């Protein structure tokens, strides 16, 4: 079967598997998240049928139906984008998520792109001047950057730049007074509010990207085909871009798939620190409020976003590496 076709077919399968996982977590864990709510409602003197109806409405399943029926209901509802009703916000989960998702994607995409650009440039320059004092200085800097978690940049930035010097806002994605729309005011406010979170999320990643790029480039510079290219009299810029850069970036690009995963997960801490209203922020809000429908909804959508992001990265991989093969390895 065609590689792309196969790869595309895997998306709904993965999402179904994750749906099954969230269903299992809600339903099968000891105690179950709705037990608490049920006890609470019954204690308030609500009749049992009414309690059941309320819970069914919250999670779009019938609590007394057989398990397979509950599972089917859950999956069908989720496919129709009905993720239940948020308990704490009293709003459909899907509405909360629709408002939050763009912010998270904006944060992750911008900072990942920035991290890649800066890291690759730095690593390439380091490799070119390998052993120079610039190389030594930036390499040790990169090692230090690698050992600092991004939320420390976030907290330190918030402490000095937002609270002490009041240069940046301390929370939210956009100023309250600004209305959403295609106006300069809106976009500048969004950028202004995003500077600190994006910077915190980017700086830490530059170190490891640069170190990886540096060692890949040094390795490529020693390869025979680079020597051959020189002997053929190709221009330096052609050798640098076509031969060295392309082959050194390739392994980094493969790692990108993994990286997106970690970074999407990482927004949970980042958004919480900056009160940035993305998926991670609502996930923590839901956790703190015992709001299981919202919690599972956020978890599901973060996962779905990751699946799609990895899919895009996977497809574009072929554009950089023409050798991509979907051939099966033979078994022993």
């Amino acid at each position: 079967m065609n590689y792309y076709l196969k790869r595309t077919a895997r998306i709904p399968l993965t999402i179904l598997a994750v749906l099954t996982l969230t269903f299992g977590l809600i339903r099968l864990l000891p105690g179950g998240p709705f037990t608490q709510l049920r006890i609470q409602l019954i204690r308030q003197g609500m009749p049992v049928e009414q309690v059941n109806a309320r819970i069914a409405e919250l999670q779009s399943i019938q609590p007394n139906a057989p398990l397979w029926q509950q599972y089917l209901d859950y999956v069908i509802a989720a496919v129709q984008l009905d993720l239940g009703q948020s308990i704490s916000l009293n709003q459909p989960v899907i509405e909360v998520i629709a408002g939050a998702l763009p912010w998270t994607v904006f944060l992750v995409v911008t900072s990942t792109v920035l991290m890649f650009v800066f890291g690759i440039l730095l690593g390439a320059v380091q490799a070119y001047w390998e052993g120079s004092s610039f190389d030594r200085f930036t390499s040790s800097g990169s090692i230090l950057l690698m050992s600092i978690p991004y939320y420390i940049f976030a907290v330190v930035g918030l402490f000095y730049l937002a609270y002490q010097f009041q240069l940046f806002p301390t929370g939210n994605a956009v100023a309250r007074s600004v209305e959403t729309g295609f106006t300069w005011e809106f976009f500048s406010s969004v950028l202004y509010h995003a500077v600190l979170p994006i910077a915190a999320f980017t700086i830490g990643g530059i170190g490891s990207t640069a170190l990886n790029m540096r060692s890949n480039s040094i390795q490529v510079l020693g390869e025979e085909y680079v020597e051959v290219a020189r002997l053929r009299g190709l221009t330096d810029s052609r050798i640098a871009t076509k031969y060295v850069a392309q082959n050194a970036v390739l392994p980094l690009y493969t790692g990108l798939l993994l990286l997106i995963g970690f970074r999407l997960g990482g927004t949970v801490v980042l958004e919480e620190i900056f009160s940035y209203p993305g998926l991670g922020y609502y996930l923590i809000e839901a956790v703190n409020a015992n709001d299981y429908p919202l919690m599972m909804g956020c978890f599901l959508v973060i996962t779905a976003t990751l699946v799609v992001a990895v899919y895009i990265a996977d497809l574009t991989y072929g554009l950089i590496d023409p050798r991509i093969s979907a051939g099966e390895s033979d078994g022993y």
Partner: protein
Amino acid sequence: MATEADSSGSSDSVDWRSESSSVEMTREERLADLYRRWVREPFVIAWSDLRTRVGLLLVVGYLAMGAVAVLGLWRTPQPNQGPRLLQPFENMAYPLGTTNSGVDLLALIIESTPFILLMVLAGGVWATTLAVLVGTVSGYKGGSVDNAIMSVTDFVMAIPGLPLVIVLAISISPENPIVLGVVLTINYWAGLGRSIRSQVLSIREADYVEASRTMGTSVPRIIGKDVLPNIMPYVMVNFVLAARYTIFASVGLYFIGVLPYTGQNWGVTLNNAYSNGALFNPAASHWLLVPMVAIIGLSFALILVSQGMDRIFNPRVRTRLTGESESTDEETTTGGTF
């Protein structure tokens, strides 16, 4: 110290690779050999590099802190044991200062160390062991075994780590450091397993693996004897990275207050400082900074050690130690500084 070991290492000029062919060694000789190959040589190589030396010293420092906590050599953290919000290095009875309720910060940091170290070790061991198992079996066996294992791996990889840990933490409330280490890296193995697999794919085409296969050697033996030694450097480096991930993730999640806790640890200290307004109050900023320094120090140490690990497993560096190839000497100049 390094020079002494160096000269004795080169005085017996037996190549360490050829030793398996030399017959009849007494048990003592074999033990001495094992010691030399696995303890002294790696140590000498590691020690010769400034980065690794600093890293190892830092790790020893953290282990010592753990020992101090286990043996109870420093006071246990308690409210009102010192003045409130004392700045660091002002009063040497409380070197790192105190919190707003007068708890000695140094005592807090020391008491958390065994917990953190255990958790980091558990996370690293779990993630790398599983990844090696998955990567080698799937890469070497290929075919339908590979397909089956990789489908599972891809699914696990598709779940973002921290949100999964948060959801799991609510249902199983991991308070034991070892359980917590495993929960935090619950799906970390997948990505690592995948990259180990791609390395194994190229190793399995090598001549000596082909030879073992035609001789009818069993699959576990081929994986153990031929494949594993080749990926060991990569695995060790990634063990350290997994350990670092465990620290980052746990502290981050404690910080935002989603992991359950009973005792103190660096993340909880950060969280307490944060929620008590250390962010707005410059007089309390050391309360935030002290646990941060503890975290950065440990991950810095781990990364430095991982950089040195690369050299320990690099066969070219090893042969130089036995005094065989002098020609690669100029290499040390670039690697030795940082």
